[in-house]
């Protein structure tokens, strides 16, 4: 009896210990952290900058591998590239988003990494100090990417050797498609509520909210359970704050802080929208997909999200759906909006860096622009003739102004690795009235200080 009890205890212990370990087992692959290959210091980064870049790729058959998560646009862009260069074969490996960031770091540090990998500068920045991805400076100069890609979209992908401060140092990835955060509206609800024009100022927008509310609709659908809540805050901050202050903070410039007046005003505006009922009380329990569904089925008049939702919303609402950037306090044209890019980096271990770089260069071509636009993104080459109408035209027009003004800024969760876990609960606190503006902004800055301080 004593012995079986002991055995039971032991097996219970092991089984329970496993529960805790299970979630981590995935990231601790068999090589373990001690034996991580290619884990060098930043020294190698300097070497790669002296690599010779060529803008021709030869006629020899070449096979590259490309790891990615976002489709569209990746597969279509790969197909477009190999059509232009039939001697190149690109084998693609797709991983669902939730697993991608976790597995790609290990894949890139293995002995046979993919030649090209979709790159997220926030979540994957350790690849830079580890020397696992190439500095693209030689190709940037050789191809003249400064002129062919929007400047702001390259800034986000540039960082110092330690990958702690962005918008400075070497370029590590090239953007393949762009997104922009804005406000979608349901034109037939606005008609019904007697809102005759697309709101041009924040005050107009709030008036429109009140009118659609009186007409029996929800003003805004907000996915407060996930990122929808802080996207509203972000859009407000974009128009209420100074773009340089915001950019310094997100890029991790020394001494930057989010505890400023503009951020407080954005937070209080959001709190007021909750109080007025513009943001539904159930927002905290609403997932982004649910908020989008509510908007698409005509329960609400407005939805703050990115252009990635455009094709789905167009399919549901047809000509009723339109898009504008969050309006500012004055009626001036808004030139600042948060956006991200589907970007690609090149492995430091690739045997064909020039071919891989040719793929990145292709992303800024007019042919690629058409593919990017058709797959629901904003094109990298903004001058391409896209002949769009309706919703796509709305988005393209808004986006064009932002790019011209160099006004694309990263999302705030970019500022530090743990930031998203401060933003979502913080905004939930504002929505439920349990967190003060100061406490919210303080928690953001705390995460920022921990990472950059």
């Amino acid at each position, binding site marked *: 009896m004593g012995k079986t009890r002991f055995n039971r205890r032991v097996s219970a212990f092991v089984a329970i210990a496993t529960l*805790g370990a299970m*979630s*981590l087992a995935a990231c601790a692959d068999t090589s373990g952290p001690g034996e*991580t290959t290619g*884990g060098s210091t930043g020294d190698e980064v300097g070497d790669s900058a002296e690599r010779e870049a060529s803008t021709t790729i030869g006629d020899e058959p070449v096979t590259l591998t490309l790891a990615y998560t976002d489709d569209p646009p990746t597969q279509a862009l790969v197909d477009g590239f190999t059509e232009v260069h039939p001697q190149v074969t690109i084998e693609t490996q797709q991983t669902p988003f939730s697993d991608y960031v976790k597995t790609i770091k290990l894949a890139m540090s293995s002995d046979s990494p993919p030649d090209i990998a979709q790159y997220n500068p926030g*979540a994957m920045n350790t690849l830079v100090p580890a020397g696992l991805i190439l500095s693209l400076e030689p190709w940037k100069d050789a191809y003249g990417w400064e002129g062919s890609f929007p400047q702001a979209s390259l800034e986000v992908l540039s960082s110092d050797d330690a990958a702690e401060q962005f918008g400075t140092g070497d370029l590590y990835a090239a953007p393949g498609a762009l997104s922009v955060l804005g406000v979608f509206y349901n034109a037939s609800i606005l008609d019904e509520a007697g809102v005759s024009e697309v709101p041009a100022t924040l005050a107009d927008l709030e008036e429109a909210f009140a009118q659609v509310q009186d007409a029996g609709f929800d003003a805004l659908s907000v996915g407060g359970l996930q990122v929808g809540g802080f996207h509203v805050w972000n859009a407000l901050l974009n128009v209420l704050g100074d773009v340089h202050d915001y950019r310094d903070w997100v890029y991790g410039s020394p001494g930057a802080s989010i505890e400023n007046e503009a951020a407080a005003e954005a937070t209080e505006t959001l709190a007021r929208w909750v109080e007025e009922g513009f943001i539904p*009380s159930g927002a905290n329990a609403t997932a982004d997909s649910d908020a989008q569904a509510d908007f698409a089925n005509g329960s609400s008049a407005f939805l703050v999200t990115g252009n990635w939702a455009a094709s789905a919303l167009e399919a549901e609402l047809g000509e009723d759906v339109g898009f504008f950037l969050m309006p500012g306090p004055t009626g001036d044209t808004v030139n600042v909006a948060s956006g991200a890019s589907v970007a690609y980096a090149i492995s430091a271990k690739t045997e064909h860096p020039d071919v891989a770089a040719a793929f990145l260069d292709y992303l800024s071509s007019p042919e690629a622009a058409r593919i990017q636009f058709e797959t629901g993104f904003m094109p990298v080459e903004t001058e391409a003739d896209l002949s769009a109408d309706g919703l796509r035209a709305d988005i393209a027009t808004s986006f064009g102004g932002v790019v011209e003004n160099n006004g694309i800024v990263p999302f705030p969760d970019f500022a530090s690795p743990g930031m998203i876990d401060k933003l979502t609960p913080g905004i939930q606190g504002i929505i*439920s009235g349990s967190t003060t503006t100061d406490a919210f902004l303080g928690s953001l800055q705390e995460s920022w200080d921990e990472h950059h301080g």
Partner: protein
Amino acid sequence: MAEVPATSTSSSRAGSARDGGSASSRTRRPGLGGRARRARGWLYVLPAVAVYAVFAIWPALSTLRLSFLTWDGVLPATSAGMDNYTRIFRDPALYEAILNSLVLIVFFSFIPVLIGLLMTALLIGRVRTGMTFFRVVFFLPQVLPLVAVGITWRWLYSDRGVLNQLLELVGLDGITRAWLGDYHLALIALGLIGTWCMSGLCMMLFLSGAQKIDTALYEAATLDGAGAVQQFRHVTLPGVRKEITIAGVITTIAALASFDLVFVTTNGGPAGQTNVPALLVYRLAFNEGNIGSASALAVVLTVIVIAIVSAIRFFAREGK
């Protein structure tokens, strides 16, 4: 037979070792010594042990090792000493998360055991037809993947969900809300999903335990004039004592180590009101890339689970 069911691998191991042993003892061949028999027993066990060692024991030990390292998943790991542990113990979020998971024990463990007992009392010895039906219906939540369960409940609980529609139907418009988004009620709403999941499991365990009870005991009790309540109290309840312990252990582990359900329903929200330790482990490891601290937290969680489960087993032990 009071095996901890979470150790299904080990119980099957014990089972096969026992069978192997008894089989050879019955057909004891001359010249086959005890040692050879034991070796053959291990041979049977080997596949299970190998799988268990590679997929359970090894990762657990890795976690322990990682908890003393600073590692982001890419760069070479460096020794961290106890830094990871001091960091997580300084974070008030940990204590809130543990407190929340203790509240969840009430809903994942305590209430389901009570409901399971009630169902057992109602079903045992009385329901002759349709028993399979009841079993299937009540056990169904256990069979469904928790992620699907979570998403379904998120909709049931939502602003315009079925729950609120029902409340409006009976005139309770005043209390409708997005339950999982309510600052004060989210944890309870979440806990009730756990209750729904776990009650059927408890009932199944208790029913199987109660069916082992000699019917003569019930007859004797009836002859002595015991009513239904007394029969339950003096015959059924002692008969399922071990099953209650098992149910308590499984459901408590489910409460303390809950992750998937919380992840898909509230993801810790609103404003951290439903954070649980496993969620913090996940965020540290996969959002912040701080695998050392995540492992340390996982180790702490494991210790807490062992402590609480040991306590349950201690108090539920046979009084001998």
